[in-house]
């Protein structure tokens, strides 16, 4: 079971991931684009874009490695998409199985959750004084926000709240790195085009 620190391993050297991570990302992206045949002239726009997105996600997952759950889940999604687009019949894709959190973590997480989500018992004057409607409303809002996060983070649905937080942080940092690397690639291509146009 990856500790929180293991999952946060990408955060070396500054926001948006370390330089080493981004270099690995760029390398993987170029290899992936090559494999996806995006330089072919016969490809339609949509097809090319989908291939690019797939290559970007595959590059991200493989550069990050198998430590975080989101990374494994994303890799599985990419494989499933590739099978779909190539028309291969595939049993509905592997879903990411999050390693079960250690029992102690579960107990502590549950205690913390219970504390924040405790509802006032009807008919108990002390409790309703202690936990007013405000607390209940806030707890329901927390539940809602957490469930949105579970949809956004790959593989988030299988996770408990504490692991989800660590995964979210790691995922956000890695995503930012992916954006940065793709922006770099765009600039490279734009400059190449500009140079080519000048020389005409």
């Amino acid at each position, binding site marked *: *079971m*990856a*500790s*929180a620190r*293991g999952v*946060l391993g990408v955060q070396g050297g500054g*926001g948006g991931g370390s330089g080493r991570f981004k270099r690995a990302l760029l390398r993987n992206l*170029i290899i992936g*684009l*090559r494999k996806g045949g*995006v*330089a072919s*002239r016969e490809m339609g*726009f949509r097809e*090319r*874009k989908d291939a*690019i*997105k797939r290559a*970007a996600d595959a590059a991200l997952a493989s550069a990050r490695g*198998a*430590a975080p759950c989101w990374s494994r889940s994303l890799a599985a999604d990419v494989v499933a998409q590739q099978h779909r687009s190539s028309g291969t019949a595939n049993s509905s894709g592997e879903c990411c199985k999050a*390693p079960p959190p*250690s029992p*102690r*973590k579960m107990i*502590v*997480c549950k205690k*913390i959750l219970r504390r924040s989500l405790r509802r006032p018992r009807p008919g108990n004057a002390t409790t309703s004084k202690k936990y007013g409607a405000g607390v209940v409303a*806030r707890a329901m*809002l*927390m539940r809602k*926000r*957490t469930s*949105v*996060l579970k949809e*956004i*983070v790959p593989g988030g649905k299988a996770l408990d709240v*504490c692991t989800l*937080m*660590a995964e*979210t*942080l790691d995922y*956000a*940092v890695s*995503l*930012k790195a*992916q*954006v940065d690397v*793709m*922006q770099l*690639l*765009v600039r*490279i*291509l734009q400059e*190449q*085009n500009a140079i*080519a*146009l000048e*020389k*005409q």
Partner: protein
Amino acid sequence: MSSRRGRITDEEINELISKLQALLPESSRSRSASRSSASKLLKETCSYIKSLHREVDDLSDRLSELMSTMDNNSPQAEIIRSLLR
């Protein structure tokens, strides 16, 4: 994968929360007190991740277009193509 059997403490959770806060774009931080609403933090994290997804989508559009309009005859295009072939 390491299997460190430590307790995940309140301190670790606070650390994660403050890291998330540090990660999010500047505009939100000035308003938050030291005990800022956790749900607000989650909401902003969700927005942040969604905006990153949109950026990736937009960049994929641009990359797709750039690759399709590359001048076929220039040596630069050949270099790029050989890189990506």
